């Protein structure tokens, strides 16, 4: 790509992308007691990367975050989510029963808190990973026939 | 061991032998088994106690009676077993695992069904006869045989499922599966069973599968087929529907109408198939009369018929085997090269025509007397007419065109020894049963096996009246045949005269037969053509709709379905809104 092109875009993007990512984490970590959470944060995070890919090219984005990573991220998210559920089982509760996570005495809320945060983190991973995977699946795909042929 | 012999349905032994036979590659060993199995079966049958539930089973909460011998099915089972033995001997010359095994399994299924004490067992073996017998047609290997076998299978399975449907109903209604005679045809279960039996017994208009498939079967296959399926149906009919008036008329029609087809038919095995139909008609008619005498007649007739029809099919099979054809127009003069076969064929022909001293006579007399005795004059006349017809097409036409007639010039070897042996045994039975009683043999032996031996033993077939009537009928028919032949009035493809007992009716009968023959000769093919055309149309129509290129498969990729979705949704809502109570 010609480095002279889209200078403004590049410069703006370079400033914006960290902010977007940061905002994603803000949304994420406030999700357990205010509007927000993993879904929104995951999408915002993915948008940051996608913006990067749009401006700096898919190939450099692929170098930054390879598809195998995004796939793994999505899977890890689900594993984290389900893992919390199973953790609760070992704590003596039902599946996904956060109250049982930390084996607290009656009235303890830390299990609830931790559970929600972990779950939301799982959702973040899952959503961000999936969004990026989908994006790569279309943008990064090398078509077997060229555009002119059809 | 004795317990096993007394309680095991001999059909099982045959079925088992058949299935094992499928896998025995050594010809002689297998065929040894095939001959021994029916012998064992006969022995087992003689050991069985009558009218007892010899073997029961409890499956799925249903009580099944696997083996039950009574006076009625005893004689059928015996005939089946003898036929199985004759078939096995008749098949010895060839080496065909599938055919040997399936023939034996088929025979076994028929025997097992004959001794079944409940509906479900009957049904299972009923279906088994269908499935195993189809191979005997398929094995002929021709394209025509393939299609015939598929049609045959479809019809037989249809009969089976109808039976099943009927059984389910009966079970629902009565809670029992015991084979008992129905009281009326009003209830649907009885009607379904009746239809199933009707298909298998080849009632008029349900009979086409028989003439379609039997002549296309293998040499051995046709012999085997001729013995079991229809007679099993006759037995079932006798057990379930004795004394149903409608059977008299069905039987009477059945005896008459094949005559016209048989006399104009060129393929001699097809002639035999028609005459099979005609003979079964006698039995059905007798069952319809339902008196002890009539049932005796049906049973005796079935026994005799199984043997002599097998004999006739065997002789035609031998001819086919040696010459490669069974067409009347291509045969003739074979008595020189196949004298034994010719003699056996004549014995069979004499038996089926009910010449005195042959088995057909003693059996048919019972039926005729029973019908006459109960006062069904019209039916009696129809039977009489059919008797003459039998002589015409089976008694004279078969041997005449095959072995005598104009010499076709074919010079072939005599049939293989095993065929001759089988035919010889069958002939011996035909004659022994037909003779007057002596030393426990003769017709007395047969009569003692009948459902009502005391009634049968009071009946004397060899009265002057019977013999005279019969001989008069036969001789005049023969005479007519000879005369017509001499004057060149009997073209090979035209019907012959059919003489009635009364001279006065002779010309009328002749005229009628001639007319009917001509009409059938023209109308028959025309009707076949129309039916074929309609079937073809229907098939094309169905194919146009359902085939992979058809309308149903063509619709837009998803469009059709989306419309269906909307339409069904609308309908479901409409239904809900219309029917809801407020």
């Amino acid at each position, binding site marked *: 790509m010609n480095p002279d092109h889209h200078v403004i875009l590049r410069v703006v993007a370079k400033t914006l992308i960290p902010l977007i990512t940061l905002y994603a984490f803000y949304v994420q970590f406030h999700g357990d007691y205010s509007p927000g959470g993993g879904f929104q944060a995951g999408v915002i995070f993915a948008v940051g990367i996608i913006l990067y890919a749009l401006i700096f090219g898919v190939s450099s984005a692929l170098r930054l975050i390879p598809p195998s990573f995004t*796939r*793994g991220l*999505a*899977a*890890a998210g*689900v*594993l984290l989510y*389900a*893992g919390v*559920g*199973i953790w609760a*089982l070992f704590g003596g509760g*039902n*599946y*996904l*029963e956060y*109250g*049982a996570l930390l084996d607290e005495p009656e009235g303890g809320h830390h299990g609830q808190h931790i559970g929600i945060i972990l779950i939301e983190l799982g959702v973040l991973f899952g959503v961000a990973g999936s969004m990026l995977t989908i994006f790569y699946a279309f943008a990064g795909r090398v078509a077997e026939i060229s555009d002119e042929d059809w | 061991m004795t317990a096993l012999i007394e309680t095991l349905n001999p059909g099982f032994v045959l079925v088992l032998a058949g299935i094992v036979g499928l896998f025995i590659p050594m010809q002689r060993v297998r065929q040894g088994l095939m001959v021994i199995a029916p012998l064992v079966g006969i022995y087992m049958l003689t050991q069985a106690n009558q009218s007892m539930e010899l073997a029961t089973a409890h499956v*799925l909460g249903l009580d099944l009676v696997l083996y039950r011998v009574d006076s009625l099915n005893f004689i059928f089972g015996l005939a089946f077993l003898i036929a199985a033995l004759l078939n096995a001997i008749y098949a010895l010359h060839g080496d065909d695992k599938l055919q040997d095994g399936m023939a034996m399994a088929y025979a076994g299924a028929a025997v097992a069904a004959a001794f079944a004490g409940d509906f479900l067992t009957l*049904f*299972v073996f009923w*279906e088994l006869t269908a499935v195993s017998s189809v191979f005997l047609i*398929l094995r002929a290997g021709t394209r025509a045989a393939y299609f015939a076998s*598929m049609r045959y*299978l*479809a019809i037989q*399975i*249809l009969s089976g*499922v*109808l039976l*099943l*449907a009927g059984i*389910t109903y009966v*079970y*629902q209604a009565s809670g029992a599966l015991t084979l008992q005679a129905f009281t009326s045809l009003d209830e649907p279960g009885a009607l379904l069973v009746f239809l199933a039996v009707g298909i298998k017994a080849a009632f008029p208009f349900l009979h086409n599968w028989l003439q379609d498939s039997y002549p296309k079967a293998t040499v051995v296959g046709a012999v085997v087929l001729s013995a079991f399926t229809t007679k099993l149906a006759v037995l079932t009919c006798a057990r379930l529907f004795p004394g149903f008036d409608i059977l008299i008329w069905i039987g009477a029609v059945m005896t008459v109408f094949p005559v016209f087809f048989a006399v104009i038919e060129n393929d001699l095995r097809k002639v035999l198939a028609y005459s099979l139909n005609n003979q079964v008609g006698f039995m059905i008619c007798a069952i319809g009369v339902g008196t002890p005498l009539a049932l005796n007649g049906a049973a005796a007739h079935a026994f005799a018929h199984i043997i002599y029809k097998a004999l006739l099919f065997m002789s035609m099979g031998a001819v086919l085997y040696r010459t490669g054809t069974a067409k009347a127009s291509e045969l003739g003069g074979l008595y020189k090269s196949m004298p034994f076969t010719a003699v056996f064929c004549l014995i069979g022909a004499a038996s089926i025509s009910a010449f005195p001293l042959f088995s057909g006579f003693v059996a048919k007399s019972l039926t005729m007397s029973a019908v006459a005795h109960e006062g069904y004059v019209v039916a009696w006349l129809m039977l009489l007419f059919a008797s003459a017809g039998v002589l015409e097409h089976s008694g004279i036409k078969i041997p005449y065109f095959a072995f005598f007639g104009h010499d076709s010039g074919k010079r072939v070897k005599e049939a293989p020894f095993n065929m001759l042996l089988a035919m010889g045994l069958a002939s011996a039975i035909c004659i022994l049963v037909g003779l007057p009683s002596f030393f426990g043999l003769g017709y007395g032996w047969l009569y003692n096996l009948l459902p009502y031996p005391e009634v049968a033993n009071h009946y004397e077939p060899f009265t002057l009246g019977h013999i005279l009537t019969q001989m008069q009928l036969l001789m005049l028919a023969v005479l007519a045949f000879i005369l017509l032949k001499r004057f060149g009035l009997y073209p090979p493809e035209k019907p012959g005269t059919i003489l009635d007992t009364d001279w006065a009716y002779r010309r009328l009968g002749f005229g009628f037969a001639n007319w009917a023959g001509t009409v059938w000769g023209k109308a028959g093919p025309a009707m076949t053509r129309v039916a074929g055309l309609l079937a073809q149309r229907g098939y094309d129509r*169905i*194919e146009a709709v*359902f*085939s*992979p290129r058809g309308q*149903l*498969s063509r619709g837009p*990729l*998803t469009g059709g*379905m*989306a419309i*269906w*979705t909307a339409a*069904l*949704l609308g*309908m*479901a*809502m409409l*239904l*809900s*809104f219309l*029917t*809801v*109570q*407020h």
Partner: protein
Amino acid sequence: MIESILTHLAPAWAIAHAAPLLVVAPLVVATALVFVPSGRLAWLISILTTGASLFFALILLALVQADTVTLAALADAGIQTNMLREGVVSYAIGGWAPPVGIEFRIDALNAMILLLVTFIGTLASVFSWPTVNAEIRTEKQNLFYGAYLVCFAGLAGVAITGDAFNLFVFLEISSISTYVLVALGAGRDRRALPAAFNYLVMGTIGATFYVIGVGFLFAATGTLNMADYTALLPELVGNRTVQAGFAFIIIGLGLKAAMWPLHQWLPNAYAYAPSFVTTFLAATATKVALYALIRFLFTVFSPAYTFETASFDWLIAPLAIAAMVACSFQAVFQTDVRRTLAYSSVAQVGYMLLGVSLASVFGVSAGLLHLMNHALMKGGLFMAMAGIVLTYQGTTLRDFAGLGRSAPWTMTAFAICALSLIGVPLTAGFQSKLMLLQATFTAGWWWASGVIVFSSVLAVIYMGRILEAVFFKAPENPRKVRKEAPLLLLIPLWVLALANLWIGLDASFPYDLARNAAEAVIGVGGQQ
């Protein structure tokens, strides 16, 4: 016999948490498979996972069937069983008690379906390796197994959940992975792609219809819990909202269950999907959707409502009949064996729906019995089919000619399953058809029994054609080598074939399952 699993085999945690683990285990493992480098390893893992699910399904079945004595013994031993009352297991996800939280609720009906799905799933996993290895690219195999397990978990989830919306989510989880699995057949035949797309559009419409229906019910009652509907709906029978919901749900689920004429996604999807996928789907997917339909027809709604009776008589039964006739005809004319089998599947769905539409214990258990038997026979048929695709690469009737000689073991099992499909005595298919006939007689539906008979004759024709080609025709191009399917494929195939024979001889086990299931659902909805 099954109860011994509770007392001897299963650990306490498995008994307490069998319900969520049954679904969660395959779901977790599916995602973990992303990290598994080798297809063969993924295969082994998926066998273990589906096997574990089968184990959990057995535990659930045992719990549902357990009598009070066994349950008391379990309680004494300190084992938590989540029994709501005898015959119903209820598991509150996250500890949120229903109707607020999502409930996994298992009674005799879904215990049976779960057993069926997990059993077929396990068998399918075992047999899958040779065909997957041949049909799917090496680097995609672990993802393929991942998608398969997701689909498996989705189907199990549909069967296990007691929450109407959760059911939709699981339905879509299984459906979306199914679209992917079907599309993977494009490696062999590109027609898999339009087939998958078609399926996607139709499947989504069906699922959306279902959601709309649930929305109506939610509007009318304010709940999503199915057990709650049972309690609330009788008050609202005259309510048009409920009726509209009913119509949407029936059509939506009917589409997923391939109810004629909403079946048109099915033949192509089955014909062009990878062999293993076809096997699994044919034996489970429509069955599970049918289960959901039965669940709604009999426990959420009730045959006591006149509008439901009307749809039984005027909608479902006629459609079932039409399926039995039309699709049997279509099956007769197909030249591709897979399509023949696919059309016959639709026809068989007709049988099941017919049983259901009788709305009697007898009819529903006949339908359910046929559902189970059909899974066994179709599973076997498609497995044999997969073996043939693997060794001979042909699916048309001509390719099948003479295979009886070159692959006798495969084809004998195929023949057994085919006979079962026809309904020959001493096979499983006979038992269920017999029962269905009895049920129609009891209900006095003469015409229906006639159609069953007719459709059976058609089945004789279309399966007869195949069997005739297999056993009596000379091979088209003589294959010198005798080439069986691999042993790995033959074993599950024969398990299914023998299961068909076994049920043909002694149907008491599946019969009891079906009977209990039918008794568990009939009379629950609104007519106590």
